[in-house]
Every structure is written in C-alpha cells, then in structure tokens.
C-alpha cells in the first residue's frame, strides 16, 4: 500500500515558527476560524510532532531554531509532508542578509511544497496543503 495514501484524509498539522514576523502564524490560525474553517476537512492543529502528518514551517529559521527544526524532523513519524510558508521560509525573504539567518528551510530539511506570499493568504494555505497531499497520495 502506498504510504502516502494514509495522508489523504484528516491531515493533522504541526506548526513550527522560527524567526518569523508572526503574520504567517496568524494566517495559519486564521485558516482554522469561521470564514475559512479548515477543520471541516479534518485538518487540525496538534501540539506534538508525533501526532502530525504535515509540518508547516514559517520564518527565516534563525540559528537558535535550526537545530530544533532538524531534531523535530528526525523524530517525526514518516511520511511527513513539510510545507514552507511565506517568503521568509521559501527563500529567506527580507531577512536573508541577516547575521542570524540559518535558513531557508530547504537548507535544513527536505521540503515538499512552497507557499510564497508575505503573508501567504489563507486561501493559498488551503490550496498548498491540498496539493501536497495529492502529490503524496499518487
């Protein structure tokens, strides 16, 4: 059986943020609230990476967060879809020349999908997560 198929229903997401401006994180929470209501698809934010099927990463990943991101990815049960959200997570964004940058995310762990935008809109988040699940289950 294709392991990716397990992912195709009720995706539980874990949210990791390091060196972000907080906006992508708010848009992730926003996607759970009445107007966008991700929970109707069974998508739910969980507190532990051990319960998660998908990891959403935001921010430019600073030196303090980088080791923790690697550690969390290593202990997560696979398959795990990793989604980089926002311009900073995709490319470093405006913080790319900073002395405290360690990212972007794909320098540290493999990434399945990139959702650009500053911040990424909730519609883009939903679209991105659905696409990565489709990609994994075929």
């Amino acid at each position, binding site marked *: 059986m294709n392991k990716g198929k397990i992912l195709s229903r009720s995706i539980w997401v874990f*949210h*990791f*943020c*390091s*060196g*972000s*401006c*907080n*906006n*992508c*994180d*708010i*848009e*992730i*929470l*926003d996607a759970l*609230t*009445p*107007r966008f209501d991700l929970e109707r698809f069974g998508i739910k*934010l*969980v*507190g*532990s990476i051990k319960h998660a099927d998908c990891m959403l990463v935001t*921010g*430019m990943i*600073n030196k*303090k*967060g980088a080791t*923790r991101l690697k550690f*969390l990815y290593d202990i997560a049960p696979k398959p795990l879809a990793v989604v980089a959200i926002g311009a900073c997570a995709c490319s470093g*964004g*405006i*913080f790319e*020349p*900073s*002395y*405290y*940058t360690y990212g972007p995310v794909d320098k540290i762990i493999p990434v399945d999908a990139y959702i650009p935008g*500053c*911040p990424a*809109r909730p519609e883009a988040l939903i679209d991105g997560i659905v696409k990565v699940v489709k990609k994994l289950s075929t």
Partner: protein
Amino acid sequence: MNKDQKKRKTIIPVGPYHPLQEEPEFFELEVEGERVVKLNIKIGYNHRGIEKLSESKHFDQVTFLVERICGICSTSHPFAYVQAVEDLAGIEIPERAKYIRCIIGELERLHSHLLWLGLAGHFIGYNTLWMWAWKYRETVLDLCEQISGNRNHYAMMRIGGARRDILNKEIDELKKKTATLTSVLNMFKGAVMDDPVIAARTKGIGILTKEQAINYCVVGPTARASGIDIDVRRDSPHNSAYNLVEWNVPVLPDGDVFAKVVVRILEMLESVKIIIQCLDRLKDLKEGEIWNEVRDIPAGEGIGTYEAPRGEVFHYVRSDGGNTPFRHKVRAPSYMNILSNEVAVIGGDIADACITLAAVDPCYCCTDRIQAVENRPACPLRQSSSEASHSSGRKLKYNWEQLLKLSQEKTKRILSIKNQVSK
C-alpha cells in the same frame, strides 16, 4: 534553602515550541504544588537582527523592513519610524496624510485587540469566544485589504506622508462597513462583562498594582488597566490627526486580567469613533495631496513614538547625512510588558498562569534581543584590571567599576562621532 524545600519545587517548562504559543518563547515556571513561586523568561528564539539590517537599507526601504518586525503591529513600527525621520529632518506632512495614517493605525488596533480577545478566550478554554472574535476580525481585514491591497502588511507609511490615497468615492462604503463594527463591539462588551465564565476566570487574577506597574515601566493597555493614564496618541500627537478628532482614553484602576479585557474592548469602541471621524474629514480634502517631496535626509538624530496596540513603540534614528541610517534603535512595547509577568504570575494558580502570561498581549517577535559577549584573551579591559573577570569557563563577568568604564568609553565614542558629524 534546605534540601527538603528544594525537593518540593518542580519546574514546568512552557515552550519554546508549545501548542498554546504561536511563537517560540521559553517560560520556566517554578511551582510548589499548584502555586507558582518563580518565573524565568528566556528570549531569543525569534531574533532576526533587524536593527543591523536597517543600517544596510536606505531610508525609504527601511519602512518595509520595520513593518516586518511584527505582523500584528505592522503599521505601528513604520508609523514610529517615519515620525523619527520626520523629526530628524523637520518635515511636516499634508493634512490628508495625517487622517490616512490614523485610519490605518486604528484599523490595526481593532484587528489586534480582536485577535487578542479571541486568543484570551482560547486560553481560558472558551473556544466559542475565539471563533466569534476572529469571525468579526475578518471584517476589519477586509477593510484593510480594500484600503491597502493586503490583509496584513499595509505599507501605507512613507517619509513625508502616506504611500497610498483613499479614494473619496469609496469613503461611504468604508464608513458603512466600519459602522457595523459598533454593534458587534457593543455585543462583545455586554457578553464579556456579563459572562460568568469569563468573570470567574479573570476577576482578581494576575493583579498588577499601580505601584508595580510604575516600577516595571509597563505601557499601553496593561498600564491603563492598572490605573496609569498614559497614551502617546493623546500625549504627543506629532504628524498625526489624533488631536483633530474627538476621543477618550479608557483607564481602569483594578489591574487584574478582567480590567485588561475591558480596557481593550472600550479602546476598540474609541477606535471606531476615530476612524469614522477621520473618514468624514477626508471627504472635504482634495484627493491626491498625500505626501510632501523629501529630497535628502540631513545629519542628526530623531525620535518617533506611536501608541501601538500593546503600548508605546519607540524608534530612534541617527543619520550621518548619507543614504542609510547610521543607527536605528527600536523599543517595542512588549519588551516592557512581558517582564511585568514576573510579579503578576507569582502566587497564582498554575492553571491561571496561561491567561496571566497572555494578558499583556505578549509579542515575542517585537521583543527578541541578542547580546554578543566578546570573550577573547586580548580584551583590553581585562588586562587593565587585575581582578579575575574570567571566573569560570567561558563566562565573562564585569564588576561595577568595569561597567562604569565601559559606559564612559561608549559615551566618548558617541560624542566623537557626533563631533565628526557636526563638522
């Protein structure tokens, strides 16, 4: 402390990646049974080095950079920054730009306070309030999108005025949408004040007395809920329209979490009042006159302040006459407010710690700082002093005289730069 007392204490780590926090931050709660006895805060998980980056961007680009200090106060930081540069160069802005600045600033306050109200509900286990507040927050975000083109980062500030105009033909619609918020906020006011669940979980919890509030220099709604009557919008309304419209500053004396909730709700009602008055005045002014031409920034220094949703945000800019800021210093309100948790949370129940920590509306991405400790053997200070400042391992310790000397050296260095600049 004897051995038995040591054993009784338990440390509960909250964070850095905790399900309740959307941002990484580390709180160490020391508890005896159910009672919190000590709080240790560790910051730095969200540091990005913005002040240093700012020195490599030219004055106009910095507005976009400081916007990304924080996603929630993303118009307060540019507001304070452009005021600092305008203070430096002595620029006055057109009247229309003043109103536009106030409108976007107050819309931000509305969405920030609604966001906090929802999260506060979530923290006491009242998710209905969360969903409810965030549903109406979307109305505010729609207004922001209509005015600026983006839901969160607005980019409306510019040195010498505003970057975008609000069209006169759109004003009626904007006013109608904003007016719907009044009934919603009155509903929140009634619902929150009469709700037995909210009253039971927040009244008399996490009290910050007026004296403690003054000692910890808290700002914004946290200070106003403890009976301190401060508001930068009223006290120094430079280059903004706050002195041209009618509004009040709500102040409550109690200092508990309930007072902080009520202060924020009352403030939102004032914000709606300000927005509607500003939109009315915009109609009488000519479209398009939104910014004054700024050719170059002279050498000197400037200070800008603005009342962000969490309190006073302070920006300091020094220019040496070049293209980029020579030094840019930011002090965000959460930096003062978060430390007051140290007294508010102690003596409380462990179950109340969460809402007490969240009551100051902490914003960690505004707060994070880094300290670089130079620890090389060639440090001149250590050679000059015979005292062992290198006590154990790699930790460097300064005593009072050494710190004083460091401070004096810095003053001399700044003065010599200042002299060079003025020459």
